[in-house]
């Protein structure tokens, strides 16, 4: 028994038929070829599969695709616009916030939601916000710096868009 659903992923609408038991991460990776989000733990702990569902960070291994029917999904593939890195991607690059990169897509999706809610988080707030994303390589220090770096960039950006000081 399958069920027809519709998912809009990074702005592209997909109509597809899925088994009710299919996890959102399976559908994204295996059916739609968005292989940016990764599977790390299957126990809802590691956060490597984090995507935005209607703008909120969720662990896509703990959501059935049928539950996401009609929703907007953003994956790491949707972060950059017109070939230009999102500030969080720039932050991770500049601060060496990644090593093997496996946790990074999920880490960045959680971090962008944090920065939406809290544009100027403290180190403690960043560490708390990343509680659901495990990294085995970096010891987290440069991830914290990467988020701080992105926060600074994002705070400067609107000023530039407004035409600066004058």
């Amino acid at each position, binding site marked *: 028994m399958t069920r027809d659903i519709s998912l809009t992923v990074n702005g592209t609408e997909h109509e597809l038929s899925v*088994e009710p*038991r*299919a996890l959102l991460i*399976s559908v994204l*990776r*295996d059916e739609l*070829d*968005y*292989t*940016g*989000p*990764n*599977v*790390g*733990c*299957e*126990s809802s*702990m*590691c956060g*490597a599969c984090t995507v935005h569902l209607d703008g909120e960070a969720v662990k896509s291994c703990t959501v059935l695709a049928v539950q996401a029917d009609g929703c907007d999904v953003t*994956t*790491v*593939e949707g*972060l*950059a616009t017109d070939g230009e*890195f999102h500030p969080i*991607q720039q932050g*991770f*690059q*500049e*601060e*060496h916030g*990644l*090593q*093997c*990169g*496996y*946790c*990074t*897509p999920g880490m*960045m999706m959680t971090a962008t939601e944090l920065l939406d809610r809290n544009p100027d988080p403290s*180190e403690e707030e*960043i*560490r*708390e916000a*990343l*509680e659901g*994303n*495990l*990294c*085995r*390589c*970096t*010891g*987290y*220090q*440069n*991830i*914290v*710096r990467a988020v701080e770096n992105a926060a600074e960039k994002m705070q400067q950006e609107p000023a530039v868009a407004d035409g600066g000081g004058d």
Partner: protein
Amino acid sequence: MGAESESGSGVQSVDPDDVDAADILGSAIERREDPALLTGDAEYTDDIELPGMVHMTIKRSRHAHARIENIDTSEAEAMDGVIEVFTAADIEAPGNLPTGWLLDSLEQVDHPILAEDRVRYQGDALAVVVAEERYIAHDATDRIDVDYDRLGAVTEPSEALADDAPAVHDDASGNVAFDWDIGDAEKTDAAFDDADHVVDLDLENQLLIPNAMEPRAAVAEYNPSNDELAVHMTSQNPHLHRLLMSGVIDHPEHKLQVRAPDVGGGFGSKIHHYADEALVALAAKRHERPVKWTATRTETYLTDAQGRGHDTHAEMALSDDGDILGFRVDTAANLGAYLSTFAPAVPTYLYGTLLSGQYDIPAIYCSVTGAFTNVPPVDAYRGAGRPEASFVVERMIHRAAKEVGMDPAEFRRRNFVEEFPYQTQVAVEYDSGDYEKTLDRALDLLDYDELRERQEAARAEGKYVGVGLSAYIEACGLAPSELAGELGAQAGLWESGLVRFHPSGKVTAYCGTSGHGQGHDTTYAQIVANELGVDYEDVEVVEGDTDEIPQGMGTYGSRSAAVGGSALVKSSQKLVEKAKRIAAHQLEAAPEDIEFENGDFHVAGAPDRSMHIAEIATQAYLAHDMPDDMEPGLEATSFYDPDNFVFPFGLHAAVVEVDPDTGEIDIERYVAVDDVGNQINPKIVEGQIHGGVAQGIGQALYEGAEYDDNGQLVTGSMQDYTVPKAEHIPSMETDSTCTPSPVNPLGVKGVGEAGTIAAPQAVVNAVCDALDVDQIGMPMKAERVWRAANAATDGGEH
């Protein structure tokens, strides 16, 4: 290169475009690996999708030790979408997984890729399912019915060696895999006879589960028309996997390609040759269709080779003045159910040889018994033997300083090795070092004297503050091959590097190492660009594919920069030599009159008469005007076999406050001063230290594989086994000194494991210091600390 950083505030990265070509080596440039990893463009093994691909799963033993009476696969085979289910009975003589390091006394045991009539750990492979879809394969695995006759299980090495322990292998009497020793027993006994003080501790170094974020995976494809088999897999060493797999599945090595695509961390767990990847290759051959297997996290918990697992009794002989006179160590090492690829080397040559630490110890004796148990095979995990050694040494130093009433920093200083090279009592010769320098730098950063005063004041207020030091040493780039061979290695320990100029002047560098997060593409390009004097952007780096790279030993043991990097230096130097002769020929000068600087060859005293190396590359491929007897082309390969290990070192310190009511530990500060020789990319070095320390803190406070009496893993998921989170790891203050290694042309020493080696005992020493107790076991979970604190405050035994 070689500059020492100024403070503990961290390294600032730079854009490679902003770095002068001449300064590229030693610059903290941003990594070229990152764009693909940051956009989802990376290709991990599970991302690979091939036409006609099918999925494989593995039925694993429920019990840690049992006889297999029957495996009923009929229900699974009858399912729609299931292509085949096979067991050991269905394949010709299931291959045995080999052991790559032999010891004289080693009891070698069979390790079939599919268990035939007996399973020896929970997770041992019993049957393989091949199905059209991933979900169906998993469903079918659940429907395989296995009849077990359960046997008694043993999981701790000291228990396995007891008289009445269940026998893991019928051939291995008393579960002894080997007996091994190093050092001089008599001399050490004599030192103890003369000692004013003897201290001793029972130390457990618990079993750890590596937990690379990417589970192991493999995709195999087979072409029957030419018998070529390609395996894309999570590998730290594709060439070694190819060599071993060719034997295990009996497929000719030259028709087997092993390729590591992007690999999501390894920490040792992706060095070893497991049954699983071989089964994927077999399945692809059986069905002539691409086959994918991706471990679930549960499978990684049950089957990834685990690390550590030592039960140790250590004793130290001391003089009244605080001199270390002798050191005696007796260890029972857990090897798990079978001998994994490098398992015998880890608790022996990678452990016993490091027991002199940073100290001039006149007499050392260490004996190790390797024990078979009913846990997954135990092998190299980040640090591999060296963390165990450093832990024993530094815990004993902490205990010894207390015994003779000296400050632990001063006790260390008094006993440091001061002159190099230094021959230890446990076989190895330290290349270079300056141990006081890292100690002094760390004490400065800590403001040590003030800290000790604060500690006393805090105690008066009922607060428990502690300082723990760890003066670690490690050995990287195990070498030379001849020595390794004498010690039992079944492989050489060189590394290959091929540097190839293309006719347009661009360069590709191929190295037999295989990075999985360490940033080799960046650092190797820095090395080669520097040697050749070409733009960093003009150098491409290729790793991890047996079809592209001449040969290789892989990435582990912090060897890549020291051995792989040096191979690329050697090859680059060969290229420069050849290019110089071409330049001399075309500039009509004698080769000895040609000078090479920043990529330019010019005639001495006539800087206008010059050619850039890229131009010479073009000429070398045109081959219109070459010196006599010179072949066209410009590329060179080296197999670099170092003369010795390199010995990085450092001083790590933790400052903790312990709450005796709850057992909670707050790491207030963590200071790391490391000396890894010259640094090719200080930002990457710093990142390696951070990550290593986090794993070390993980071991000290949180991590540990725990089994029940029947060998059932009870920490079998991330819900129960703590992989540290961002909140668990403090912000670290890192700094470095630089004592270049004389062993290799880069003067580098290796950094991948330093933090993991240094951190556990820094934290344990700090907590013991805070509570004024001699010993707390790892992981120092809150309850354990609470009990220790209460035993201490009650004045009871601890």
